[in-house]
């Protein structure tokens, strides 16, 4: 482990945003926003530099306090972590720019909202810390940081619906992290280590390990709003302010997915069975259908987008059954693993861009109309060409039409499904896409329809629309560097691996 090069970037990626967050606390509205924006830009720059560092030197580590695991904590930035950090930075910087303009525009009506910037920078630090962490307990602390920030941001508007949704979200988040921590306690008790790398070597199958896997998975499923624990997501995401909704759905839920992926692939291989993968895949499949259907039935824009998140997160869960190999299949012969991983990563990234753009557009529409009932979207094209375009482009990526990132994700998922012979997932993917197409085209049809009556479209800063559009375009542009990105990811230890579940002693790990 120590042979990896040591780099200061992992420590800076966590430290800098927190430093700027505390600094911004000392200023009032305008000054806070300025310091916050500078902090966001600096963090983005740092993330890009760190990304370049990983591209040049490969995975780097940072041994905190100079104490090596198992006693100390290690931060590890491998290509997978670098991609997630880079994604957070790219999406984050656009949302920051949007938020800067958005709160300036709100200032006239509400006198500005304090605390967005410190909380968002803390959240960013938490996300970076999570992607870098290589320690089970440290992961708990980072998800708590993320959880508290996320809920605090979600209730910033102070409306009672937002508060109620926020409390539900917070209780779900605490329950999830406690369940996760119970698993960590059992793992520590049975192995005496918390370091992911060491755990992968020493963890032995058995009742305790299987149960720990079960509670950790349940906890993380609650955190990432996997079916049937998705109940908190739509109200929380739809009642938050636009930049916050974008952050929550684009970035926050991905954190729990990242841990789940890492733990299943790197640590719990010994206890995973084919059935466990199938179970989690079924949960994902139900989420895809249920979420898309619910989105189709909604009449307000933000609720549509929020329910669509449930569905899109379902696709992420559907990657797992492909990565857990059937008994008798070896990782070498499974040629679909790389496709499945690509599908997962691309789904994460394209969803982050598209969904952020969608929520930001919804925020623009609310700002222009004062509400987001979809009947009022009539003649959106005539009034706000750019926003309509952003919604269209982001929608196309969500559906998975070529040449978007969403298409890449769904195509690779289908490829993996057919190569692995698990054809039963294919109808779900297609049905999900059809339903998504249903609500996206419904929105677009309204946007192009002639206005029945004069809706009072208030003027909205152009720059807001541009940022939303740029994010939407981002979900297309990520397709172009696909080859080099995959190549880069393949130098990560975990990317492209699968779990062989032959003759593993554990009972079924999931229900």
């Amino acid at each position, binding site marked *: 482990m120590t042979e990896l090069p040591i780099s200061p970037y992992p420590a800076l990626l966590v430290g800098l945003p927190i430093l700027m967050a505390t600094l911004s606390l000392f200023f009032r509205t305008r000054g806070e926003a300025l310091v916050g924006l500078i902090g966001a830009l600096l963090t983005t720059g740092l993330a890009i530099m760190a990304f370049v560092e990983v591209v040049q030197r490969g995975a780097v580590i940072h041994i905190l*306090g100079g*104490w090596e695991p198992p006693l100390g904590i290690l931060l590890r930035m491998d290509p997978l972590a670098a991609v997630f950090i880079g994604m957070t930075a790219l999406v984050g910087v656009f949302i920051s720019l949007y938020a800067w303009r958005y709160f300036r525009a709100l200032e006239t009506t509400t006198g500005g909202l304090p*605390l967005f910037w410190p909380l968002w920078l803390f959240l960013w630090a938490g996300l970076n810390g999570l992607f870098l962490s290589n320690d089970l307990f440290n992961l708990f602390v980072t998800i708590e940081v993320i959880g508290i920030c996320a809920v605090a941001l979600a209730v910033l508007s102070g409306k009672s619906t937002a508060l109620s949704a926020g409390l539900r979200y917070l209780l779900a988040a605490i329950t999830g992290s406690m369940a996760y921590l119970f698993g960590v306690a059992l793992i*520590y008790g049975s192995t005496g280590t918390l370091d992911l790398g060491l755990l992968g070597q020493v963890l032995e199958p058995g009742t305790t390990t299987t149960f720990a896997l079960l509670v950790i998975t349940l906890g993380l499923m609650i955190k990432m709003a996997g079916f049937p624990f998705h109940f908190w997501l739509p109200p929380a995401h739809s009642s938050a302010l636009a930049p916050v909704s974008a952050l929550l759905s684009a970035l926050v839920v991905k954190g729990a997915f990242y841990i789940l992926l890492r733990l299943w692939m790197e640590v719990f291989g010994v206890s995973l069975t084919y059935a466990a993968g199938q179970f989690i895949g079924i949960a994902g499949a139900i989420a895809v259908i249920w979420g898309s259907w619910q989105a189709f039935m909604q009449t307000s824009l933000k609720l549509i987008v929020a329910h669509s998140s449930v569905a899109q997160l379902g696709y992420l869960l559907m990657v797992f059954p492909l990565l857990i190999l059937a008994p008798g299949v070896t990782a070498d012969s499974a040629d679909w693993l790389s496709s499945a991983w690509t599908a997962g990563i691309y789904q994460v990234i394209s969803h982050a861009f598209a969904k952020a753009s969608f929520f930001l557009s919804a925020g623009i529409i609310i700002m222009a109309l004062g509400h987001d009932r979809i009947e009022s979207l009539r003649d959106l094209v005539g009034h706000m060409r750019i926003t309509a375009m952003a919604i269209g482009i982001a929608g196309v990526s969500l559906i998975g039409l070529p040449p978007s990132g969403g298409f890449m994700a769904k195509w690779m998922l289908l490829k993996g499904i057919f190569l692995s012979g698990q054809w039963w997932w294919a109808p779900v993917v297609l049905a999900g896409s059809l339903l998504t197409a249903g609500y996206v085209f419904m929105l677009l049809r309204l946007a192009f329809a002639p206005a029945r009556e004069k809706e009072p479209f208030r003027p909205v800063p152009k720059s807001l629309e541009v940022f939303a559009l740029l994010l939407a375009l981002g979900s297309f542009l990520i397709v172009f560097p696909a080859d080099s990105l995959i190549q880069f990811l393949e130098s990560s230890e975990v990317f492209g691996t699968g779990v062989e579940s032959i003759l593993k002693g554990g009972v079924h790990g999931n229900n």
Partner: protein
Amino acid sequence: MSILIDILLAILGVYLAMQSLLASRLSQSVFLFFAFGLALALAWVRLGAVDVAITEAAIAAGFLGVLFLDALRDFSPRDTEEQQNLTTVQNSLSRKESKSLLLPRLALVLGLGLFLLIALEAVWKIPEGGGLTAAAETLLPESGVEHPVTAVLLNFRAYDTWLEIGVILLGLLAVFAVGGIQIYRKPIAAADDPLMRQVILFFTPVLFLFGAFLLYIGKSGPGGAFQAGVLWGAIGILLHFGGIPVYSWVPRWLGHLLLTLGLVFFLLLGFLFMAAGDNLFEYPPAYAGLLILIVETLAAISIAAALTAIFANLNQMKKEQPNDTAQK
């Protein structure tokens, strides 16, 4: 013989936990929860975790208990009436409602029972992990302190502790996010009682001294930044109760400075040594003891400030007038 105490304590803990959730009145619930926290603190002592016991008693039972009690003042009076109304209403409604509720409840109980059985088997059959005692013992001399828990908290796993100080600050920011930054008003229900004022004034220096003692002793025995911070925070809360809102005397910038001091100094010190050496939070062994003491002191100040501010802010979230129309 001694195992009997543990069994009794375990049964007591489970009983209190159950009862605090099942109690029909909210105030009972909160008091039983208080008792549960204290039972848990006893359990920590039985398990040789004195640091945890102090932390639990001070922050989980003490601080949180105060927050809950303060909340009770708000929730409680209506709750008791409502409960009585509810029982009379329930008798007429229960037939109809129980049918729809029976199945999910049964499923919940069955599911939890099954879950409990697996959980019990999992903790019963846990393999010997060995823990990290040996590793901590070997490296203890290099850590700069003599008490292993302090060594882990502030040196071996300083990163976690740093983030945790951040979480306390975040907790305060989150409370601000709910109610707006309004810590500068006068406290609600300040005691105008002369006796209470005197007692508070008597306890203030005692608590301060005891906190300082815990902070200093943390180097070699149970104690440290968190326990000291909570005790100092208790001073702020007590003074607030006594009608002396210390927090409102502090100018805004100083308040924020106190709140962020621990977190920022911890980090800047880490960055300083990172610039000189390789890694964040890597202290030279010769100075580690002193640096840890400084970091702990500042952290304790920040924790105390944050807890006081959390309490002061929550104290104001009183429902101004019971809105009878909102109540069905």
